[in-house]
Each structure stands twice: as structure tokens, then as C-alpha cells.
């Protein structure tokens, strides 16, 4: 569930109100108008929940905020998978793979750092997945820190977020679940500072798969968070792909912008998966070129020749400077005002060591979730709070629950393969223009 959302500001305009109405109607449209003689749900969404507004939409459908009815207390986020052909008379079209995965996995999973499923209602040709409501997500928290002027997320808070994220991920990995779409928008945070991994629409079990994982899904993970082995076409990838994404998220929490912000090459008409040259370049700019000496599997990667051509065709200076993650890290600390004496505190040398182990080229050497949780970054410097907001003064805005979905419907922006808008600047501009 990508509850992508910018911070709210100002009041809801008249236009927004109309569009809210329209949206809530769209929630209703399938529910009230149709009576079929075939399958009918024994539980009706409308009997159990009062829909208070619209949160976001994506390729999968829409997410609404709801409160429980008839003694069923609490706030919820209802993810409605849209029937395929909207508008015309709605038909059963078969469930999407993403819906099935999320339904099957979420029913089994239960962990403090994984989003909590309340129930699933199959009603009138739509699937409604009811989740606990989470007030924030990492994308929104990062936004909040970039405006009106940038101010760093306190080091303690970053540490708590990361610990909880890794803890949830360890649970997924020990249960043989790969998430495959970790990014700030999918990391939810409750108002009491608990981190929940959300959106398991791309997740799958990886215990003794019948086919290589590549055969099942050609492209996984939003481009900016995609591990190098995936960019190089690896057929058999591992939980290490999730750890790379965590490394990227760690970096983004500290610098408030994606560390490897590449441009996605589109699939051509033949549906072959293109080599993501630009994204690979962004990684190389900071980490240097991967080398066979330190990554023995490198030469057998399907896209290895592409990587070599990258070197031949363009040779900017940084190719020869070698790895410079440390330089990136130090300037990030400096720009963010992270230091032992500042109010933000500092992730320090331990933080650098951890991030460099997460952004390790060779997936077999990359740190695992279990190892990361035992890293000095967490074991040194006191206990880690299970409430990431503990001792934090700034108040984060509530999730915006409103109105139109037009500006959220996108198909062509980078990283929007599945849902939501990853690019904060674009999103914010769009919002501002509207207001």
C-alpha cells in the first residue's frame, strides 16, 4: 500500500470538496448499484466501515481512510483493488497477481513492524483489504524535513526507524518472504512512532521456488532502490536485494534525497528488459565501478558486457577516482548539521560502516538483516526506542485525507511502475499548482 502523501496545508477548497464527493461516489459505485444473484459477500464494507476520505491511488486501485462502525473501533486504511474496466458495467476479470500475493501473505504475517491486516472483504467484484491506519510514512516524513527549509531528521530517530525496519525485514526474511519493493513510500509509521513495512504487492515466498524468480517477475523494485545484481540482470536473487533498498533508504533519511536518483529506461516494444544504464551510472558515481576481484560473480552477470561498455563509452573523471561513499557520507553529515554537539546528533562512524555494508556490490557479502541488527550502530550508544518519535519535538503533519485523485494517477514518472509518486519535488509542485 503506497499511502503516498504530501503534508497537508490549508483548508479544503470548494473544488476539492466536490471532488471528494466524486471520489467517495467512486468508492460506492460498485457497491450500491448492483445486486447479483451469484456470489454475494456475507460481510459488507459499508456495514462495518464509514469511509471518511480518500488517501491515494495507484495502478492497483485506491486507498481510503475509514473508521469502524457498530462498535468496531479504530481507524483503518482500506485498499480497494479496482476492477479492471472502470466505467462500464463491471465484470469479474480475475484477480491480479499483486492482489493475490498481498492477500495470501498478509493473512499469514503478523509482526509489530509489518503492516497489520484487519480483514479482507470480497464484495461486488472488488477486493477491499482493510489495514490498520498509519498516520505517516517515510516519504512524507522526508518531505516534512525538506520544507520550508531543510532540517535534518534527528540521528536518534533515523536509528529507531532503521532498527524497526530491519526488525520487520528480518521477520519477513526468516519466513522466506522477499519484499522486493522497499522504498520510503512503503515504509509506514504510526502516530506512536512504530514502523510498519507496507505494500506486499510484489512480495513473494522464495523457499525453493520452482522457477527462477526472474521468470516470475521481470522487473522488481522501484528503480532508485534496485540492487546492482538486479540491474545487471541476475536471475537468482536473494534477500540481499531488500538490504540494498534499506541502504538506499538509510542514505535518504540522512540526506533527504534519493542517493541514486537515476532515470528509468523504458521497456521497448519487444518487451525486453533494457539495461538500466543511467541508474547504474548513478551508483557507479558514488561507489565506483564494481570489480571482479571484489565481486567474483560479476563476470557471469547477464549484463556484464553492458557494464563494460559503460566504461568504454563514457569516462568521466569520477570513474577513475574510485569509491567515494565516505566522501558522500561526510558531506551529507556536514550539510545536515549532524555532529556530536548539534541537536540532531550524529550517526557517526558506525553509521558509515553500516551503510557501506548495506551498499556492498557483492550480494553474497552484503550485510543481512540479522547481522545489521547486531551492528555497532545499534549496539553502541544506548538503547533504541520502539517509538521513533521519542524525544522529538517536531510534529509531523497528519496524512492528508481528501479529494481528487487526478494528480496522483501517473504512469510514466520514474519509479511509478506500480503505485504512488516517489519524486517528492514533482508531487509537491503539482499540489502547489492546484492550491
Amino acid at each position, binding site marked *: 500500500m503506497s499511502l503516498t502523501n504530501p503534508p497537508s496545508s490549508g483548508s479544503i477548497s470548494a473544488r476539492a470538496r466536490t471532488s471528494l464527493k466524486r471520489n467517495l461516489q467512486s468508492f460506492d459505485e460498485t457497491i450500491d448499484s448492483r445486486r447479483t444473484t451469484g456470489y454475494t459477500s456475507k460481510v459488507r464494507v459499508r456495514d462495518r466501515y464509514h469511509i471518511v476520505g480518500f488517501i491515494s491511488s495507484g495502478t492497483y486501485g485506491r486507498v481510503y481512510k475509514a473508521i469502524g462502525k457498530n462498535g468496531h473501533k479504530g481507524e483503518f486504511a482500506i485498499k480497494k483493488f479496482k476492477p479492471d474496466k472502470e466505467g462500464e458495467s463491471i465484470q469479474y476479470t480475475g484477480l491480479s497477481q499483486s*492482489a493475490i500475493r498481498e492477500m495470501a501473505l498478509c493473512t499469514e504475517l503478523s509482526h509489530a513492524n509489518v503492516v497489520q491486516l484487519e480483514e479482507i472483504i470480497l464484495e461486488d467484484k472488488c477486493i477491499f483489504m482493510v489495514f490498520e491506519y498509519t498516520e505517516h510514512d517515510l516519504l512524507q516524513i522526508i518531505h516534512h524535513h525538506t520544507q520550508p527549509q531543510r532540517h535534518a531528521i534527528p540521528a536518534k530517530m533515523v536509528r529507531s526507524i532503521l532498527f524497526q525496519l530491519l526488525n520487520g525485514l528480518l521477520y519477513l526474511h526468516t519466513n522466506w518472504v522477499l519484499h522486493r519493493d522497499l522504498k520510503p513510500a512503503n515504509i509506514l509509521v504510526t502516530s506512536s512512532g512504530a514502523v510498519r513495512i507496507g505494500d506486499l504487492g510484489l512480495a513473494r515466498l522464495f523457499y525453493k521456488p520452482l522457477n527462477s524468480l526472474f521468470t516470475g517477475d521481470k522487473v522488481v523494485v522501484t528503480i532508485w532502490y534496485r540492487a546492482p545484481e538486479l540491474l545487471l540482470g541476475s536471475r537468482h536473487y536473494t534477500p540481499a536485494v531488500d538490504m540494498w533498498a534499506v541502504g538506499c533508504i538509510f542514505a535518504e533519511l540522512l540526506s533527504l534525497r534519493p542517493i541514486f536518483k537515476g532515470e528509468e529506461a523504458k521497456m521497448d516494444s519487444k518487451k525486453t528488459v533494457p539495461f538500466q544504464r543511467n541508474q547504474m551510472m548513478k551508483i557507479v558515481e558514488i561507489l565506483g565501478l564494481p570489480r571482479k576481484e571484489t565481486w567474483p560473480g560479476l563476470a557471469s552477470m547477464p549484463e556484464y558486457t553492458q557494464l563494460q561498455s559503460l566504461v568504454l563509452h563514457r569516462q568521466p573523471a569520477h570513474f577513475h577516482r574510485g569509491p567515494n561513499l565516505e566522501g558522500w557520507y561526510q558531506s551529507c553529515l556536514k550539510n545536515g548539521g549532524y555532529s556530536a554537539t548539534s541537536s540532531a546528533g550524529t550517526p557517526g562512524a558506525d553509521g558509515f560502516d553500516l551503510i557501506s555494508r548495506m551498499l556492498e556490490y557483492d550480494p553474497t557479502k552484503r550485510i543481512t538483516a540479522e547481522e545489521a541488527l547486531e551492528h555497532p550502530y545499534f549496539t553502541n550508544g544506548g538503547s533504541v526506542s520502539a517509538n521513533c518519535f521519542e524525544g522529538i519535538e517536531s510534529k509531523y503533519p497528519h496524512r492528508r485525507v481528501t479529494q481528487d485523485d487526478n494528480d496522483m494517477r501517473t504512469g510514466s514518472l520514474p519509479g511509478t511502475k506500480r503505485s504512488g509518486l516517489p519524486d517528492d519535488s514533482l508531487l509537491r509542485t503539482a499540489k502547489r499548482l492546484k492550491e
Partner: protein
Amino acid sequence: MAANYWASTQRRHWLFSRESLADVRERLWEKDKVTHSQFPLPDQRLLNIYFNQRKTPPLQEITTCLSLSRTHQIGQAHDHPPTSHCHGPSISQAFLYKERDPPDKSLSGPHNGLLPGLQNGRMPPTHPFRGGRSTRALARYEFITPDVAKLGECEFALISEMHSQLIVHHPYRTLSELQTELALSSDEVALAWSVINDHYLTDLPLLHPPHVIAIMAIIVAVVFKPSPPGAYLGSAQSALAGTMREGQGMNMLAALSDKPGSGPPKIQKLVAWLAESEVDIKAVIECTQELLSLYEVWEQYSEKHCKELIGRMVKSKNLDK
């Protein structure tokens, strides 16, 4: 949880005692007493064989199967908070049957929905001795999906009945894992695999955890190994029914439970392994008996008879409309 049977929804919500299962069925029967006494259906296992043998029942039969489950054999298995919209056992069986075939194609058409989704965990690995099956199954699936909308509706009904609890732990996995440890020959594995196939025709999947079933299948395969070994074509019924009936089986089981050290070396080894493991031997024996009785019932199976009885019931309830 997904990787742990003991924490799974399968164990928590889909494991019944014989009594509770009987209660559920009784209650459902009572609900529609008149029809049921006017139009009796064959033994549940015979019905299961019927549906299973028609690997890809025409659409109408899928619907019928569903309606039957709803009106007849199953329902309200357990109250399942918070929503209590649960139905029960035999539909899950119907489901298990469906998904035993290779997951090449969505049950409901273009989006590779149900079946590949199930592949995530539900599907047993494709049986090594059933090669070639998958393409044929695929072809069949394509034949039965002219009406995606109806099939999609069935998919909805099934998933809803199952509370979206779609991940199933199958005995096949335990079998593969024990293959090396117990030094099973490929014939034995093939036979055990077929026995596992057959157990889905009974209530066993709802009564015992998958590892118990797997061990039962291994014992049956090792102890009753029929000669000549060969193709079991999915079911072990023809191969095993005779041998098991001759009764050596029951003696063998007696040996398993109290006289370690007798019998051929392979069986001795198995007995020793069982003694060390903490497997519930009583449950394993019960499963063996259940399987034996399935093979007995099977001998009375008549496709025509099943078809007729179902047809009458369907007609009387206007389910074909």
C-alpha cells in the same frame, strides 16, 4: 506464518477433529434436510473422486460444485472472528484439488490470478514423475475459460470462503525433504507422491498436519511397495488397493508401533527413524486406515452413478440456471 506450519492459518483455522468436522456437516445437512433426504448424494469421497477425475470440469460443474458445497456438504465450519463469514471444509478440499495441478494458468483468465498466486506457497513442486502434465493441464485450462466473468466469480467465492487464507503447506515438501534422509528410491518417492495425491480425496488434509500425511505416504510406499513398480498415473489406487487389502499392511503397522528390529532392513530403518522422531505414530496409523478405506470405497465408484445423482440434486434446486 508463511514458512512455518505451526504458526500458519492452516494449522490455526483449518485443522479439525473428526467430531467437529462431523458436526459441521451435520448442521449443514440439517439446514437443507428435505432436499438431502429426497436426493441423496453418493459418499463424499466418491463425489471427490468424480470431481477430481474430471480434472477440468466444464464451467457449469465448477459452479455446481460450488453451489453444492454451499447448499450441501459444508459451511460454517468454525466461527471465525471478527467477521464470521467462514465456510468450511469441503470447499477447501475442492480447492486443494484444483490447485494440485501445475499452476500454469490463472483459473480466471488473463491476469494470471488465482493459480500463479497460489504458486507462492500453495503449490506443491511439480511431481517429477508427472512430467508433461503441465502442458496438457494448461491446454485444458484454456478450454474451460470461455466465460472469464463466471470463473472470476467462482474465484471470488472460493477465496472468500477460505478467508483469503491461501497459503497451504503440502505434504509433498516433507516428502522431498525426507527422501535423502530415509534413502528412498525413486519408485518409492513416486508411489508416496501418488498416495499424497489420493489423500486429498479424503478428509485427511483437514484432520492431520502435512508432515503426518507425508510420513504415512512414505510408510505406505515402503511397506506396501507393489511389484512390478511403475507408473502410478497420479493415483496409487490401482497399485495399492490389492496389496493393502490382503492385510499385510495392518500387520506391518503393528510391527511399526511395537516391534522394532523385525522385517526387511529398509523397514527397520524407517521404524528406527520413526521411533527417534516425535511423530505421532497413532495419527500415522489412523491416516493409513483412512487411505485403505478410501481404496475400498473407490471400488464401488461409478462415474455414471455420481453424475446422475448430482444431476438430480442440481435440477431439483435449479442450480443449473
